[in-house]
């Protein structure tokens, strides 16, 4: 009886295993989605920030038509910290909800260090690197490559641009500030009217770093050295708040709140990313070209500077349909497609030679070219553990700006905490 029972159990087990195998083979996502000839096919999921999805959809449709690979959009995280929070748990268990992900600078270096990204194909990388302008090539080498492999291709190369509400300034008999001293002068003139001369959203997480890195670039400092330039930048930021030339509440603002303040004529000039170029004209009640003029960055002791960073496409090592994902990245980064993408969305504007040649005479690409040619652009401060170091700058920066520590403590604490990372 026992033998019979064992046979039955084994038989049932066998059937179960066989059924599972058959079911897996039949399921739409089961097994490989590539055909027997290894030609990429099937469906991929691309995690991209929601606002850019409808803008590039027609180009994605072209890709599907050409390759037969369908692309499903997923709403990608908008910040590096959210991206790491969402994806690291999945990656550590060797799974990925997406086949292609949009990664920012700090997140790509963390994910590559963790060994969770697949090196991109040589074909895609070659065509892309041949098309890069000098400034972008340096950033690409710094952020996207590790141990000779490439883990990301920029589709977005962002600069912190300077916007000036020249109409507001003119109404008050003022002009756009060109230096730090000018920002103070304009601030003093506008203060009584409840208008700030400058603003940059600097909330945690991440945005405080962006702002302080921007000022440090203008001071000619190195943020991760906590040097004299960094100290000057921190002190200038605090002075703007203490004197009422910049809003203290910007320490809690998101970029949407910053735009709102600017478009309520409460802020005369600001540093903002590319997307404001689409946001401003969309506010038809408020917008006039002279209210959102792209101007040169203000000059600090180190000159008129801003820093560049960006977002790009990466393929997780655990992607379900990796071959199709690689094909997608390769196709999307061809020079002619890059131009189409840049025309479709400002989130796909880069300093690639092809893009600048095709679009560099108008719009944001023209300003990007001008900034690049004028030597305004410095690279984003690099650290192999950038996600963590930017958090450190956020905390120490905010602590100093809200009077929780003095400048010397802030600088020594910054140095110490960075050194602790090794």
């Amino acid at each position, binding site marked *: 009886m026992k033998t019979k*029972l064992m046979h039955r159990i084994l038989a*049932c087990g066998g059937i179960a295993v066989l059924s599972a195998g058959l079911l897996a083979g039949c399921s739409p996502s089961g097994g490989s989605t590539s055909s027997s000839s290894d030609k990429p096919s099937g469906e991929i999921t691309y995690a991209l920030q929601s606002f850019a999805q409808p803008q590039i959809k027609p180009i994605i449709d072209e890709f599907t038509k050409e390759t037969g690979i369908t692309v499903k959009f997923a709403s990608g995280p908008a910040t590096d*910290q959210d991206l*790491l*929070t969402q994806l*690291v*748990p999945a990656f550590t268990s060797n799974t990925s909800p997406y086949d292609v992900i949009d990664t920012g600078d700090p997140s790509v270096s*963390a994910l590559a*260090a*963790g*060994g969770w990204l697949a090196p991109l194909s040589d074909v895609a990388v070659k065509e892309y690197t041949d098309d890069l302008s000098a400034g972008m090539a340096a950033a690409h080498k710094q952020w996207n490559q590790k141990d000779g492999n490439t883990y990301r291709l920029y589709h977005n190369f962002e600069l912190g641009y300077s916007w000036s509400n020249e109409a507001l300034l003119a109404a008050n008999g003022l002009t756009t500030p060109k230096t730090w001293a000018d920002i103070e002068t304009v601030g003093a003139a506008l203060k009584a009217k409840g208008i700030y001369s400058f603003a940059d959203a600097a*909330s*945690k*997480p991440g945005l405080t770093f962006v702002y302080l890195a921007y000022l440090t670039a203008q001071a000619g400092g190195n943020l991760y050295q906590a040097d004299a330039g960094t100290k000057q930048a921190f002190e200038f930021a605090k002075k703007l708040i203490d004197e009422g030339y910049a*809003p*203290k*509440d910007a*320490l*809690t*603002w998101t970029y949407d*709140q910053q735009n*709102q*303040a600017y478009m309520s004529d*409460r802020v005369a000039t600001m540093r903002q990313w590319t997307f404001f170029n689409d946001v401003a004209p969309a506010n038809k009640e408020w917008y006039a070209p002279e209210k959102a003029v792209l101007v040169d960055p203000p000059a600090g002791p180190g000159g008129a500077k801003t820093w560049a960073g960006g977002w790009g496409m990466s393929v997780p090592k655990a992607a379900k349909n990796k071959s199709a994902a690689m094909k997608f990245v390769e196709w999307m980064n061809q020079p002619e497609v890059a131009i189409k993408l840049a025309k479709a969305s400002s989130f796909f504007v880069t300093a690639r030679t092809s893009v600048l040649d095709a679009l560099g005479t108008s719009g944001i690409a023209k300003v990007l070219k001008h900034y690049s040619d004028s030597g305004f652009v410095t690279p984003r401060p690099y650290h*192999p*553990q950038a*996600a*963590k170091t930017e*958090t450190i700058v*956020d*905390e*120490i*920066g*905010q*602590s*100093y*700006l*809200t009077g*929780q*520590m003095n400048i010397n403590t802030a600088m020594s604490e910054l140095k110490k905490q960075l050194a*602790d990372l090794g």
Partner: protein
Amino acid sequence: MSDPNSVAAARMRVSASAAVTEAFHEPRFSLRWTIARILGTVWTPKKLGILAIILVAPALLIRMITSIYPFLATAWTSFTDSSAYVQNPVFIGLKNYEQVLGNPATQKALIFTITFAIASTILEIVGGFALALLLNAKFRLRSLLRAVVLLPWAIPAIVSALGFRFIFSQGSGILPTMLEYMNIHIDWLTSPLWAQVAVIMANVWRSVPFIAFVVLAGLQGVPDELYEAAKVDGAGWWRVHSQIVLPLVMPLMITMGVFMIIFQIGTFDTIYGMTGGGPGSATQVLPYLAYQDAFIGLNYGRSSALSMILFLLVLAVGVCALGRFRKFEVEL
């Protein structure tokens, strides 16, 4: 197990045997059928023991996988240099603990975590009791009010945190704007002290209804005769509530207090959504630090050490509070 020849054991065998015979008539390969086949029809204490183990095993296994293994894994990781940047983590003893406890940011976060939990709990208990008294009173539309009062508890913490971020926001937030009308200027989220007050207020707002409803259940258990007897004795509202009602619901409130302190030591979403631990590190709490170390710094060793410290803190609070609670029960 008792003597296998005893009458009780014999009775158990008979009833178990009947159960197994019945199980043979279950559909083939069902759980009961399979167990009956494995154990056969003759029941002995040993076989009953095996059956007990088989029946308990799934629950035990799930518990092991979901609680004990992660706990032990976290404890082990806290003694290693595990991080995304280290390929082969090695044992480093108490180094992570030394680093974490020696860091002023952790000390500051530890103090605020405790302050946040205790202040929130006291306000929630007081507010919850007051609200429960109101909801226990007889008036028109009481049911509607009860439903409305519970709404904050139904809102996910992260949603209410983001809402409060805008409510407290200078320039556009409703609270600073209202206060400005009264010539009161408070930098809610940019002043370290007021930011701490703001996150505690947001947390209390969300949790008070929960406490109120638990206390309300307790209040409804207070017999009407007690109120009537007190009235006959000439006791006023204050005396009735302070000397009769409050002592009766006190065990409930203490239990809730202990639970709330423990829950709130682990608060993450309110801080994450409202201030991100800022300004600077003014509203930083231990769970948020652990999160930052794990998911932003990708330093699993240090994050695990922080998690273990958090666990010890919760354990200490739990043990102390439980001890006090028992003492209170005995005195009562």
